[in-house]
C-alpha cells in the first residue's frame, strides 16, 4: 500500500509531462527539453556528488566525451550505435579519471575533477583539432527525424536516468554510497569496498552523462569544445542538483526546473532593464546570490529541506504521542 502511494506522484508528474507537447509552444518544449536533459545529467551527478558525497566539478568531461563520440561516430555507424558508443566511451573514460581523482579527498578531489575537465577542453580545442575540428565546430547528425521529437528523447532520457539512480539509490548500492559519504572509514569496517563503489557510482554517472551529452549535441546540431567541455556545464549540473537537494531522489529535477524557468524569465523580462547594464549579467548575479543563499540557509536544498521539515513534524508528533502515552 505504502509502496503504491510512493508511485502516485511520479506517475502523475510523468503524465503531466507527456501532455506538455500538446499544449506548450515549441519554445517551451525546448525549455522542457533542457530541463529534462539537465535533470537527467543532474540525476547522474547526484549518484557521485549527492549520494556518495564526492563533489565532482568536472562532469563536463563525460558530457563532452559523450557529445563528441556521438557527433563523430553517428555519420559512420548510425544514430543508435553512436549513442551506445557515446555511453561506452564516456564510461570507459571514467575509469582512469576515477582511479586518479578518487585517490584524493575533499577539495583536492574537486580540484582534480576540474583540472581533468579543463585538460580535456584544451585538448579538444587544440591538440585533437584533427578529430574535433577544434573550435570551428562539428556539425552533428540528428537523432530523430523531427525536432519536436527531442522533447520525447529528453523525457525518455530523464526517466531512464531517474530509474537508474532511484534503483541504485534505494538498493544496497545506495546504502553503501551514503555510508561512504558519511564516513569512509566506518564504511570500510562494514565490509564496503569503498574505492570500488565510488568508481561504480562514477561509471554509471559517466555513462548517463555521456548519453546526455550526445542528446545535447544532436539537438543542437553543432558542437564545439566550449559548448560541451566547459566549466559552465559542470557547474550548472552541480548547482541544479544542490539547489534541488543533493542526495535526494527528485532534487535534480526540481533544481533544473527552477533554474531553467528562472533563466527564461530573467532573459525575457529583465533583458531590457537598461539601468542594469547587462541583463544577462544581472541574471547570473542573481544566480550567484541564489547559490550563496542556498548554501548559507538551505544546504539540504529544496527537496532535502522539505523532507527535513516533514520528518521534523513527524518526529514531533511522535514525541507528543509517546509523552502522552506515558
Amino acid at each position, binding site marked *: 500500500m505504502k509502496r503504491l502511494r510512493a508511485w502516485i506522484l511520479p506517475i502523475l508528474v510523468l503524465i503531466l509531462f507527456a501532455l506538455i507537447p500538446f499544449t506548450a509552444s515549441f519554445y517551451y518544449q525546448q525549455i522542457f527539453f533542457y530541463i529534462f536533459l539537465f535533470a537527467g545529467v543532474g540525476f547522474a551527478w547526484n549518484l557521485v556528488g549527492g549520494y556518495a558525497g564526492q563533489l565532482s566539478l568536472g562532469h563536463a568531461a563525460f558530457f563532452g566525451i559523450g557529445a563528441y563520440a556521438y557527433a563523430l561516430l553517428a555519420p559512420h555507424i548510425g544514430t543508435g550505435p553512436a549513442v551506445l558508443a557515446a555511453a561506452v566511451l564516456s564510461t570507459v573514460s571514467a575509469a582512469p579519471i576515477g582511479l586518479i581523482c578518487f585517490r584524493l579527498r575533499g577539495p583536492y578531489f574537486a580540484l582534480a575533477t576540474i583540472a581533468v575537465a579543463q585538460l580535456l577542453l584544451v585538448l579538444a580545442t587544440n591538440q585533437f583539432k584533427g578529430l574535433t575540428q577544434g573550435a*570551428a565546430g562539428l556539425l552533428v547528425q540528428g537523432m530523430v527525424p523531427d525536432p519536436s521529437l527531442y522533447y520525447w528523447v529528453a523525457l525518455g532520457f530523464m526517466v531512464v536516468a531517474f530509474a537508474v539512480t532511484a534503483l541504485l539509490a534505494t538498493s544496497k548500492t545506495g546504502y553503501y554510497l551514503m555510508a561512504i559519504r558519511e564516513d569512509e572509514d566506518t564504511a570500510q569496517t562494514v565490509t564496503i569496498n569503498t574505492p570500488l563503489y565510488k568508481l561504480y557510482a562514477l561509471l554509471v554517472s559517466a555513462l548517463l552523462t555521456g548519453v546526455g551529452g550526445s542528446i545535447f549535441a544532436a539537438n543542437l546540431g553543432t558542437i564545439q569544445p566550449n559548448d560541451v567541455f566547459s566549466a559552465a556545464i559542470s557547474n550548472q549540473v552541480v548547482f541544479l542538483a544542490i539547489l534541488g537537494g543533493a542526495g535526494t531522489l527528485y532534487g535534480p529535477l526540481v533544481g533544473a526546473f527552477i533554474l531553467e524557468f528562472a533563466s527564461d524569465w530573467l532573459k525575457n523580462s529583465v533583458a531590457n532593464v537598461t539601468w542594469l547594464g547587462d541583463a544577462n549579467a544581472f541574471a547570473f548575479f542573481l544566480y550567484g546570490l541564489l547559490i550563496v543563499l542556498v548554501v548559507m540557509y538551505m544546504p539540504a536544498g529544496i527537496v532535502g529541506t522539505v523532507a527535513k521539515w516533514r520528518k521534523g513534524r513527524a518526529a514531533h508528533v511522535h514525541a507528543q504521542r509517546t509523552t502522552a502515552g506515558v
Partner: protein
Amino acid sequence: MHNRRPARMLATLTLAGLFALAGCGTSGSGASGGSGNTGGGSAGSGDNTLTLGVITSITGADSEFGKAQKEGYEVALDEINAAGGILGKQVKLVYLDDKSSAQEAAKDVDQLVSQYHAQIILGPYSSGSALAVVKKADTYKIPDIVPTATAANVTQTGSKYVFRLCATSDDYAKAICELLKQQGDAKTMAIVHEDQNFGTSADKAMVNYAKQYGFEVVDDESYSTKDLDYKAMLQRVKQKHPDVIYFASYSKDAVALMKQAQEIDLNAKYFTAAGTGFSVGTFPQDAGPAAEYTLAAGQWDPSAKWPGAKEFYDKVHAKFGDYPSYHDMEAYAALYVAKEAIEQAGAYDGQKIRDALASLQMETAFGPVHFDSTGQNAHPVIVTQIQNGKFVTVFPSDAATGKLLPTPPWSQRK
C-alpha cells in the same frame, strides 16, 4: 533549530524582493517604449506593424560585436520606417540575446518562431551561434540571413535556408594569397590564430589556400586570448623566419601580438591578418607604431565606393558616437536585404521569402548582393594597410585608395 527559520525566510524574501525589483524595472522600461520590446507574445505581423526577429550577442563574450550589429540594425530600421516601412507596415525589431552561446542562439530561434511567428531570422553574430541557428532555421523552413559569421562551415550544412551576406574566412585567405602572389616575393608563411571558432576557421582556410597558391606553411600556432603572454609562441615563429605571418585575432590580443613581435624583434615581409582585431577602428591607436604596415583582409571600409557607405558611417557616428566597422555595416545591409526579399515575396511567408532571397540581385551600401546556390553572397574582400595610423585600402587595385608600402624591419623604423 528554531532560530534558523527566520534566517531562511529572510533569504527567501530577499530573493523574492530582487526578482520583484527586476520585474518592476521591466514594466517600467516596457512602458517607455522603444524598439527593443520583447514583452508579450505580439503577433509576427500585426495590423500595421511588422515584427522581425534579430538574434545577436547582447551579453557575453561577443557583446561588443553584438552592440555594433545592433547599431547597424537601428540605423537601417530608422531609414526604412521613415521611408514607409515594409509592405506598407511599420517595422519593429525584436532582439533576442544569444548570450554568446550556441545553445541559447538555438533556443532563440524556437522563441522567435513560437512567440513571434517569425518567417525570417536575422543574425546571429558569431560563427558558433550561426551554425546552431542555421541548423534550427532549416528545421522550421524559414530563411536566416547571416550578416557577420565568417566560418566556412556556416554555409556547408546543406540547408537551403541560409543566406550569408559577408565574405568568409576562405575569402579572406584567398584575398591575402592573391595580394601576396601579386607582390611575388613571399615563399614561406606562419599562421598564428586564436583557438576559438573564428581563429580556427581562418586557420583552416589559410592552410588550404596557402597550399593552392604555393606558399609553404612553416609554422601554425594557436593561442588563447586568455593567455598572459605570447612571446614564447612568437619566438617559435621567429625561428622559422617566415616571409609572411597571417594572424587571426580578436582585438586585445592583436595589439599584444604586434607589440610583443616588436619586443622580440620578429620581422616578416608581410604582417597580414584576417580582419577582426586588425580591422577594428581602435587598433592603430592601441597598438601605436607596432600597428604600422600591417595588412588586414576586411569586408568594408567607409571609403568604399558603394553609395551610402560614407553616409552610414556618419549616421552611426552621429547617433551612437561610435566609429562603425564592417560589423555595423553588415547588420545594416542585412535588414535592407530582408526588406527587399519580403517585398519581392509580397507576403510575410518563410518559403516565399526564401525563394525571393535565392534569386535576389540588389545594390547596397555594403556592395552588390547576390546569393549563390549555397546561400553565399559573392562579396568582394578588400585588404587594408595601416599607414600613419590610418586604414588605407591597397587591394584589389580597383578599390585601392593607396599603394602598398613594404614593411621595414623593426630596427629600421623610427
